[in-house]
């Protein structure tokens, strides 16, 4: 499934100006500990987190993640968006809490 389809179907707000929403999503990973994401996320995963600080972009680049969904309508920091645009990592926001957005995404990616 392509990232832009996920954005459309889940009503995500894309906060960073990026150009690569056409990529194929390999799966998802949910965690709020950066060390855990570094250890366990896979390439082209979508990462679901409540973290909004710029270090999430570094982790996204390191793990070659396809994008980051921030939950609870939290606003990513200015520096985070700036870095995300430099690294071309889409930062998306959902109003939903983690449990709900993960459930919907899991179903969309054929998890159930």
């Amino acid at each position, binding site marked *: 499934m392509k990232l832009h389809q996920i954005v459309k179907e889940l009503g995500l707000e894309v906060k960073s100006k990026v150009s690569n929403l056409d990529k194929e999503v390999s799966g998802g990973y949910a965690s709020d*500990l*950066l060390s855990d994401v570094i250890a366990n996320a896979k390439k082209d995963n979508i990462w679901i987190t409540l973290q909004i*600080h710029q270090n999430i972009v*570094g982790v996204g*680049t*390191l793990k070659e993640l396809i994008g980051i969904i921030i939950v609870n309508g939290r606003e990513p920091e200015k520096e985070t968006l700036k870095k995300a645009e430099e690294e071309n990592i889409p930062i998306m926001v959902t109003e939903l809490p983690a449990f709900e957005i993960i459930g919907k995404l899991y179903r969309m990616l054929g998890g159930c």
Partner: protein
Amino acid sequence: MNNLDIVGICDHNSAENVMATQKIGQREKIAVIGGIEAASQEEVHVLALFDNVKELFECQEIIYEKLSGFNDEKVFGKQLIINENNEVTGSNDRLLIGATSLSLQKIVQTICSLGGLTIASHIDRGSFSIIAQLGFIPEGLLLDALELSLNYKHRTTCFAGRGANPELYGFPLVTFSDAHFLKDIGKSFTIFLMEEASIGEIKKALSGEDGRKVII
């Protein structure tokens, strides 16, 4: 150096640049206290400061043993080791930006047992702070002080709850610049009224003993 009498050097999970900085400090008549900013498994940052490099390096070894992963210079930048003549003598390959597998409790106990000073880093920040990561300060945690970031000092950010009334946590409060760049050194600082720049004196100032004091 913004008229600072004392600086602390606390790299993430490492102390390999402390001795060179202390040599320069001796030359420039600025006291340099060596330390480490340790990252617990809960991703809480804690400052560990020591009088002597022996205990500092023991702390470093404990941290290194429980820190896995390698740095990616393209993503996180170079981690250089530099001597007092500004010459690069090496590079640290460890993932210093990562978290150790040591619990917060274990890190604090370790610093205490080595006679160091334990300060919970930037508790008013929204990331890597004890309040952001845990939501509270665990009962009985042997912290010497809580650090407020320069955001608190300059009231540039207000984290409701965390930054609003830090004195309610019941620990002495300090504030430092947490400078990651030279230009940020001294942007926030704490005044210690004490005899000398030592861990023992700082601890007395934090607890208001024998006429020592802390002013933020």
